[in-house]
């Protein structure tokens, strides 16, 4: 090449919105210098459906199906999050059995969400086999969801003051069998990748976030705990039956992709433990609170047999609770992805005046430039996977 100079220039690459590694419709505009990412600009909003605006025009009851469609792979946790928030606003308490059922459902969702994450994350970084194994257990859980409420993904199972219907003994038996077998299955996944040299090289030391930095970015869930901060809403502000079960909050040390992977794997074990305890301790009793008739739907068998209850149900569905208190509440739950917060302002009518959704995926997606800039383009995919975002929740 004597006498001629090689010219180099920065290349702009648009990753997504249609790209398998972006887990939905996320678009990243990457400025590249060779293999290195110089600048990363995420574009979100492709899945924006205006959930917050819609919620202002619906009764408290009618918002539940909207929450299903946020993080559509863990809709149970969203339902629970919304119901807990409204219950706190109204000042009502669901019965014990409902609390246990909700806890079970939330943890089942956590497992199924983490399994999906594991499969797709591994697929992104090149470990194809895990995907096939992980979907086997996910199917098992989805079948159990279907058994309880007839739906596999958009379940709408939570109700203000309880749950929609009781779980059967058969469901509990089959779920118990799952909890017996699942730890072995986690070991199977780990055999596939834990000691895999390629996996270790692709995850260790990649996307490092210190504890202070992770808090400063507002990260939550396993993404934060991977950096060694033991913040978990289930421990810090318990809801449902979480204060009655024993579990540990696994944390990482280095805050890299590998540690976050370890955190999620351990979390699945803990979720399994919680489900087992809940099945063992589950009390008998009603599943919808009977002492707050102004706010909760009457039992279905009564609606079909008794005029009063039917009128009551009709009014609640069409107009919402007539005596909602005036006030505002911020209530958060630990969804599989992180802290899912609902900030509801009530002006005393049957509809929320304002419902703000603090979704973990939105916050986590905002940290992408920080993680990707300066890293290699191959690690961008690892970084998208490790923050575990779902764009339905990010865009709302």
């Amino acid at each position: 090449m004597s006498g001629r100079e090689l010219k180099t220039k920065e290349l702009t690459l648009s990753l997504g919105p249609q790209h398998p590694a972006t887990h939905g419709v996320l678009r990243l505009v990457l400025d590249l210098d060779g293999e290195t990412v110089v600048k990363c600009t995420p574009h979100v909003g492709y899945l924006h459906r205006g959930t917050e605006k819609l919620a202002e025009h619906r009764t408290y009851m009618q918002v539940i199906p909207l929450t299903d469609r946020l993080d559509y792979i863990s809709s149970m946790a969203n339902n629970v999050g919304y119901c807990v928030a409204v219950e706190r606003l109204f000042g009502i308490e669901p019965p014990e059995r409902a609390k246990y059922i909700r806890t079970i459902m939330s943890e089942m969702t956590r497992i199924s969400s983490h399994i999906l994450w594991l499969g797709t994350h591994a697929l992104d970084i090149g470990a194809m086999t895990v995907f096939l194994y992980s979907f086997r257990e996910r199917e098992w859980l989805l079948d159990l969801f279907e058994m309880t409420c007839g739906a596999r993904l958009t379940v709408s199972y939570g109700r203000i003051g309880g749950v929609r219907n009781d779980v059967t003994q058969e469901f509990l038996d089959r779920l118990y069998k799952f909890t017996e077998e699942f730890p072995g299955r986690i070991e199977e996944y780990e055999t596939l990748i834990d000691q895999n040299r390629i996996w270790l090289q692709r995850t260790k030391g990649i996307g490092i976030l210190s504890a202070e930095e992770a808090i400063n970015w507002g990260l939550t869930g396993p993404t934060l705990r991977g950096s060694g901060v033991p913040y978990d809403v289930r421990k810090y502000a318990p809801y449902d039956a979480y204060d009655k079960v024993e579990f540990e909050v696994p944390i990482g040390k280095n805050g890299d992709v590998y540690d976050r992977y370890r955190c999620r794997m351990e979390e699945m074990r803990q979720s399994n433990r919680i489900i087992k305890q809940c099945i063992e301790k589950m009390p008998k009793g009603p599943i919808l609170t009977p002492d707050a008739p102004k706010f909760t739907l009457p039992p279905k068998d009564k609606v079909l047999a008794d005029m009063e209850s039917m009128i009551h149900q009709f009014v609640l569905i069409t107009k919402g609770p007539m005596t909602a208190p005036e006030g505002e509440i911020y209530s958060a739950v630990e969804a599989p992805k992180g802290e899912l917060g609902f900030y509801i302002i009530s002006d005393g009518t049957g509809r929320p005046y304002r419902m703000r959704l603090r979704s973990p995926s939105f916050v986590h997606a905002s940290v992408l430039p920080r993680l990707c800039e300066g890293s290699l383009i191959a690690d961008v995919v690892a970084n998208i996977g490790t923050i575990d975002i779902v764009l339905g929740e990010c865009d709302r």
Partner: protein
Amino acid sequence: MESKQIAELIKERFPTEVRKIKEFRGQVSITVGKERVKDIIRYLHDTPELYLDYLQDLCGVDYLEKKEVRFEVVYHLYSMRHRHMIRMKAEVPEGDCSIDSVTGIWAGANWHERECYDMYGITFKGHPDMRRILLPEDWEGYPLRKDYPLKADLGEMEWKGYREVMETAEKNKGYEVR
């Protein structure tokens, strides 16, 4: 520390700024003016016994015809170390629809503030990248404002991007997809 005490501390420190302190179901909200909001937040973030290091949420609220000052920007602050929280609301009048950005204190505030601008049209002074986030850049209006309709037949006023898609669909109607 109890949220009530935190509110009292703010009142002691910034007596002219605090407008109202309200408690509902154990959660305390403190309403302040927007002028010194950054100072107050800096104080809450840096004081060791408060140490509200985690911005749980930042959002806007529109109180059209409900309150004297139309907009509010709501900060939910939490301390990981002390496990206490407070809700702080800053009043933003319609005439001067802007407030200081807190991105210098929390990196995570960046997208929340962009969303707030996107939905309410409140601009954040000192924000590094004040653009729309969820809606297209050429979108008109601020959807979460109370005077923005939920549903409307806009005809020619419809967003350009949507019209283009519909026109393309109309044009391709004659073609059979095999």
